[in-house]
């Protein structure tokens, strides 16, 4: 699939933002006043910035408001509803905390649950797609959730929790990569796509058009194998292994924390790029790919 910057930024930053907000809702760290203001600003900037990037991905954004209507059937619609609900509930909690120094525990707890729920709905947008076997897998939701829980804990200064979640994520990610490679197109072949397997082995003789089109640009993206392998190493080391090791083994001060955050974000960006670039859609078969 085409690794569009808008969707990479959207999934990455909204995951981090909602992760951070979830911790704040649980009172981790137990900040108040202006410190709380700083934390909430960061959380809201990431979450809302991510959501705005996703709106940038739309070809006809003037109808975006209608995306709240189909929550009964559509995961994308559910995500929109959940995101807005989380942001509103957390706003009540944040305002009470920052300006009135009142901690509304139940509201914070509800906000945290909604934030994590939002990340889950994001993951289901991808998981639901049978047409992309690498995504259509039980590993996808926990991968998204661990990104939010690990990255959120990191931003919230929850050192041990961040270390543990990122270590778990590292292992799960490697597992998901290997499994995705093995799955390939999950048994869908050009023969099953055309029903012509009964004659014999198929090859594309002539594509339907000599130029580009939406389908090729969007769903027949190719990454070089070597390229992909290097990026996996970068994602694994910078995104998960190094932060987890530093968080769990060293005393973490502000400077080191900043280094870890930067490494994590860079690693996750590489990983998210791969998440899209390596995802093969079955329709590419019709183009002999």
């Amino acid at each position, binding site marked *: 699939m085409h690794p569009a910057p808008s969707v990479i930024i959207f999934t990455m930053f909204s995951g981090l933002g909602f992760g951070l907000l979830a911790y704040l809702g649980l009172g981790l760290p137990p900040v108040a006043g202006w410190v709380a203001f700083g934390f909430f600003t960061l959380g809201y900037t990431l979450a809302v910035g991510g959501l705005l990037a996703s709106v940038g991905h739309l070809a006809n954004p003037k109808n975006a408001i*209608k995306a709240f209507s189909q929550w009964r059937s559509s995961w994308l619609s559910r995500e929109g509803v959940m995101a807005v609900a989380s942001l509103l509930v957390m706003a009540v909690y944040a305002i009470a905390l920052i300006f009135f120094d009142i901690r509304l525990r139940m509201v914070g707890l509800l906000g945290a649950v909604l934030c994590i729920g939002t990340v889950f709905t994001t993951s289901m947008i991808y998981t639901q797609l049978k047409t992309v076997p690498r995504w259509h897998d039980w590993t996808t939701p926990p991968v998204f959730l661990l990104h939010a829980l690990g990255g959120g804990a990191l931003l919230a200064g929850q050192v041990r929790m961040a270390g543990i979640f990122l270590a778990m994520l590292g292992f799960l990610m490697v597992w998901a990569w290997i499994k995705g490679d093995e799955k390939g197109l999950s048994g869908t072949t050009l023969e099953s796509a055309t029903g012509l397997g009964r*004659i014999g082995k198929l090859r594309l003789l002539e594509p339907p058009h000599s130029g580009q089109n939406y389908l090729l640009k969007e769903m027949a993206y190719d990454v070089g194998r070597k390229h992909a392998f290097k990026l996996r190493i970068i994602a694994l080391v910078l995104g998960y292994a190094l932060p987890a090791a530093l968080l769990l083994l060293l005393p973490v001060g502000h400077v080191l924390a900043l280094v870890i955050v930067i490494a994590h974000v860079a690693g996750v960006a590489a990983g998210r790029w791969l998440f899209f670039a390596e995802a093969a859609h079955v329709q590419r078969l019709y183009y002999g790919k």
Partner: protein
Amino acid sequence: MTDLPKSTEKKLGLVIDLDTCVGCHACVVSCKEWNTSNYGTALSDVDAYGAEPQGTFLNRVHSFEAQPESGGCSQTVHFPKSCLHCEDAPCVTVCPTGASYKREEDGIVLVNEDDCMGCGLCAWSCPYGARELDQIFGVMKKCTLCVDRIYNENIPEEDRVPSCVRTCPAGARHFGDLGDPDSDVSRLVAEREGMDLMPEMGTKPVNKYLPPRLKDVPSDAALEPKYKDAAGLFGWLDKALEKF
């Protein structure tokens, strides 16, 4: 609502005969012609007369070569592909805005362009690559089964079929109600063992494809070359030219 109807009164769709299709792309052109000037926005082209033309089409013809395992002649198959108006259409249920829907009365899958926000998720969910996001208008485009022809009382009766069906010079495209076992198309499917594309995707496509009839084994009666070594004048000429 982008819930799917439990059942539809009719299952209108196409039956495409892969034995007959000659790969002329007439259906591609006629589909574009009809649909660019009717239902919804136009089907735009980008750089139409330049070096890298591209555009939106609702129907495209791929050509494949099938090689029998036993050796023998390979078979060229031209393969038109448009929306299959799936009974269990994933493109409908993923749509967040309610723009994509399946009609209860005839099973046609359509996009209401006034609601579409151009997120592209429905195209991701379609296994067949039957939906294209228009690059200029930013809304999702797909085969409408020529809904604005088949019920259109302003055009002569013989034209009230999809444009591609009306145009196909080989008669490779058939239109009808696949929900009615006695319809011509259903009979054709039964007779010719019509098949589903990617049945493993669970989309239950309404459109069916008729497999090409198998070719004869290449004839053993082909002539052996009669003269292995030419003699006389031609023999001399042959040798002389070889040396030269």
